[in-house]
């Protein structure tokens, strides 16, 4: 029997890799003098949350959603409206944006999740298109194509964010919360049930998993996270218009997920980071830089169909010091068979 005096440092040691990554992410940015790099990091953060939320559906449950930008848009507009018209403080607007996006997720999921495969995919695509048209045409509420201007900066209990570094720490906190909460979800019964549904829906149902209910819950959760990212985007860029939430945006998210690999929590973040960094890094090439972007994606699909880190789980724990056995699911997902 170990005493708690020894177990505590062991817990620290086992989590040392994760903790050191967080420490680097928290400690390095204040020393970056060129704010452009900080801004790039902020955008990576936004897209990391979005890709992680899409991963919940595509990677863990195996529901192919290709209209995820719709929930991102709902989050952005909801948050802007809540803080500007109702005067809610940002923290409440953020929660509200997530809740409203989640509610729309429920509205879409409830009637359509009895469908499977391509039918559900088409519904998500259609929903994205309809939502874009609503944002574009509902002049009195969304100000149509003119967009919503001067969204206030986030204020947290009276502290108003102004510098880019503060935005960076806010998005870092949001990304960490997302990863942590998803990690907890995926290692409890809920996550096991989702994985079971992905691996074999019939078998899952036979062992007593209420598949429809779990799929709806996953959909609502994914919409919730996308709404959170939308809220941050609205208060960060301070101008939102329907242009930013077209079906194209959904495809970018899918590309990030396909590039980084799905079914774990690291792949989506790596994918988001890579596909933000590649076009930025090749900016000196001007219009030819998108060749690199497309080329990298094609090469990836040719040589590694499951994406950079897809197809299996990775443990960031230092297992030598881990008292609990490592939990690794070896199989990938069924949409992208192993190459």
């Amino acid at each position, binding site marked *: 029997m170990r005493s708690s005096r020894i177990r505590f440092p062991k817990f620290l040691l086992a989590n040392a890799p994760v903790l050191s990554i967080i420490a680097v992410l928290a400690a390095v940015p204040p020393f970056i003098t*060129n*704010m*452009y790099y900080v*801004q*790039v990091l902020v*955008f990576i953060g936004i897209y990391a949350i979005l890709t992680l939320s899409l991963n919940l559906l595509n990677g863990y449950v195996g529901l192919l959603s290709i209209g995820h930008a719709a929930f991102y848009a709902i989050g952005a507009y909801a948050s802007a409206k809540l803080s500007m018209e109702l005067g809610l403080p940002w923290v409440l607007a953020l929660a509200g944006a997530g809740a409203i996006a989640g509610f729309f997720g429920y509205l879409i999921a409830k009637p359509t999740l009895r469908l499977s495969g391509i039918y559900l995919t088409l519904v998500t695509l259609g929903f994205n298109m309809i939502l874009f*048209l609503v944002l*574009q*045409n509902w*002049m009195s509420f969304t100000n*149509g*194509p*003119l*967009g919503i*201007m*001067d969204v206030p900066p986030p204020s947290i209990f009276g502290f108003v964010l102004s510098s*880019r570094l503060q935005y960076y720490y806010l998005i870092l906190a949001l990304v960490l919360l997302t990863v942590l909460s998803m990690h907890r979800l995926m290692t409890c019964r809920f996550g096991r049930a989702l994985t079971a549904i992905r691996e074999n829906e019939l078998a899952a149902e036979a062992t007593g998993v209420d598949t429809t209910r779990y799929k709806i819950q996953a959909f609502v959760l994914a919409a919730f996270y996308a709404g959170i990212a939308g809220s941050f985007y609205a208060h960060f*860029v*301070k*101008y939102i*218009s329907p*242009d*930013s939430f077209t079906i194209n945006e959904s495809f970018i998210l899918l590309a990030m997920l396909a590039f980084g690999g799905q079914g774990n929590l690291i792949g989506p973040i790596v994918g988001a980071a*890579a596909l933000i*960094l*590649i*076009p*930025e*890094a*090749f*900016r*000196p090439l*001007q*219009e030819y*830089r*998108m060749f*690199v972007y497309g080329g*990298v994606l094609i*090469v*990836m699909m040719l*040589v*590694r169909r499951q994406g*950079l880190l897809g197809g299996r789980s990775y443990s960031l724990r230092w297992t030598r010091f881990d008292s609990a056995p490592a939990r690794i699911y070896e199989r990938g997902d069924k949409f992208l068979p192993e190459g």
Partner: protein
Amino acid sequence: MIKKMAVTGMMVGLILAGGIAGLEPALAAGEVKIGLSAPLTGDWAEYGNDFKRAVSMVIDKVNKEGGINGKKLELVIADSRGDAKESVLIAEKFVADPAIIAQVGDFSSSSTMAAAPVYEQAKMVQISPTASHQDWTKKGEFMFRVVATQGYEGPYNARWAVNDLKKKKIATIYINNDWGVDANKYFVGEARRLGAEIVAEEAFTPGEKDFNAVISKLKRLEPDLVYMPTFYADFTAILNQAERARFKPTVLANSSLFSVKTLEMGGRAVEGTMIPVNYFGSDPRPAAQNFTKEYKALYGTDPNQFAALAYDAAGVLVAALKAVGTDSRARVREGLIGLKGYEGATGPISYAEGRDPAKLLVRIMIKNGQWVLYKP
């Protein structure tokens, strides 16, 4: 396994190499740069490349004449894809480079507006050739516009329609984007004030192909004039379908249609269309003539108005730099406001009264399949 690891390693290496290539090289002392943010790829690539050609032309000319106070100008071009988040990153990149003194761009209003707070905070001039959103220049003190806004062009067209053409029963068809909504709103407001009756205001979504419902409605209402803030693809589709429905209205539209594409795709259906333009190739003013000649000599094609507007944006910027020097970003703003008697390809430009210039519009129309100066 080894093969997989090698591929993964290659990918990571490629990304890292790109990251290193993206770092800016150390600055040579006394270098002055101008940033250009424009959609070189994506839906608006054609217009972004017009910007690139016209602005490079101005910069090359200045450098050939010895630069500004002996300093050469360098153009830094960045592709925004017409995406708001890219233009924000470009703005950050530009303001972080101390050698960049001012920025030209972007093309679309949404990209321009999303980037505006970054430029405002850095006190760097953001001069857009084409962004037409009314509220953009109100977002800060450093936003300058070259194009006539719809707040200006709309009422101008209304006076043309109601006072000069004596049309009293007017219908409008407009594209539902930020530009079209403004264009319609300001036209309708002024036309009503002048005593015209607006019998219909019809919006359509960008990309729509079938306009038969709108056309049969308008045909029934028999307007004296149809005002159409649209772009050439929609405009020619509407008029071609109207012709098939035997509906041939008198049409007044916007500078956006000024392109050979309108003539090619519209054919007989667009005959008689009247529009005001910022720039017209056979405009007799010397500034416009010089621009047309230079552009044609350099690139071998006739310039369009987007090129002309970008040419003027770079032109006023260079004139301002000549007046106040290249020491501080904030002073460029004073230079632009203090500018007097600047003659551009799109007419005289002055920012003394505000950062939305009053423009001289040229009236033109389609006659025998050609754009010609409008004569009553």
